[in-house]
């Protein structure tokens, strides 16, 4: 089953959930999906026998200033030996999407890292805290417009 077929299956089940099928870029081809229905899509992709994407290999964020931040889901089906990349574009001023932690447990720490680095809020996440930076850190460093702090807790950050 190729990417177009997967997109067709998804659209048949959830009308217009796939916004576009991107194959022209370098790297993995991906589906741009409606962020509002990520949880339905995730459950379907995991549980449907034709899909069987049991494994969330990676969850990451990408900053596209000025308007959007993307959350990227890299899925793998061990049953069929297939990979799938999903991309959900969020509003950069209020990046917010539902957590898929209930579908793939390993999304837990990945979503925390995505929140830490990009400020994406994952609704329904059981424990959405920073994972790498100190809890009292200000800002989200992997955003393109991030300004480096002069100091942290009184310790200078200058060379």
């Amino acid at each position, binding site marked *: 089953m190729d990417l177009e077929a997967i997109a067709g299956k998804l659209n048949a089940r959830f009308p217009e959930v796939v916004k576009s099928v991107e194959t022209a870029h370098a790297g993995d081809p991906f589906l741009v999906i409606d962020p509002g229905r990520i949880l339905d899509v995730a459950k379907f992709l995991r549980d449907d026998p034709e899909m069987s994407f049991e494994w969330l290999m990676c969850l990451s964020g990408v900053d596209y200033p000025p308007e959007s931040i993307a959350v990227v889901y890299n899925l793998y089906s061990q049953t069929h030996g297939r990979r799938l990349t999903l991309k959900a574009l969020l509003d950069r001023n209020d990046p917010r999407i539902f957590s898929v932690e209930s579908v793939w447990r390993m999304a837990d720490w990945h979503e925390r890292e995505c929140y830490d680095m990009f400020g994406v809020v994952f609704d329904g996440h059981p424990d959405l805290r920073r994972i*790498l*930076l*100190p809890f009292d850190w200000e800002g989200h*460093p992997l955003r393109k417009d*991030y300004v*480096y*702090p002069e100091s*942290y*807790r009184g*310790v*200078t*950050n*200058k*060379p």
Partner: protein
Amino acid sequence: MSPIENHFEDGILVTSLDTVINWARRSSVWPVTFGLACCAIEMMCTGMSRYDIDRLGSGVFRATPRQSDLMIVAGTVTHQMASRLKLLYDQMPEPKWVISMGSCSNAGGPYWEHGYSVLKGVDKVVPVDVYVTGCPPRPEALMDALIHLQNRIIKKRTIARPRDAAPRTVEA
């Protein structure tokens, strides 16, 4: 010819207390088990049989700062780690020494300009006795730093202090 020569039995040696204290301290500089990044691999290598830091009396890596004399800061110190590093340093009993191993702990290393989360030198948090350059330094460099530190230790005067020396104070 000193006046006390041949006045003692065989095996009796006369020396100053400072020499004995410094000899003991120099020969048992126990480091705290504390590695932060790739420099720690070189530090472990220094402890293994090929280089064998035990020859210098420093092979006893203690798992608690309360039994340690030396902190080898081997690796990248982040801001988050800095407060913990300071806590560990404060828990070490006097006298204590710090070796800053590698570019990262010396000055931030490759993160000195664009590393938002990396401390720009561990000397911003704790006082450093010896800096070791390298990225990472070879085991020989770490051993050289240790010998350098030992040479400083044997010059220290604990009992016979100079008359005009200021009273020793512990920094807050």
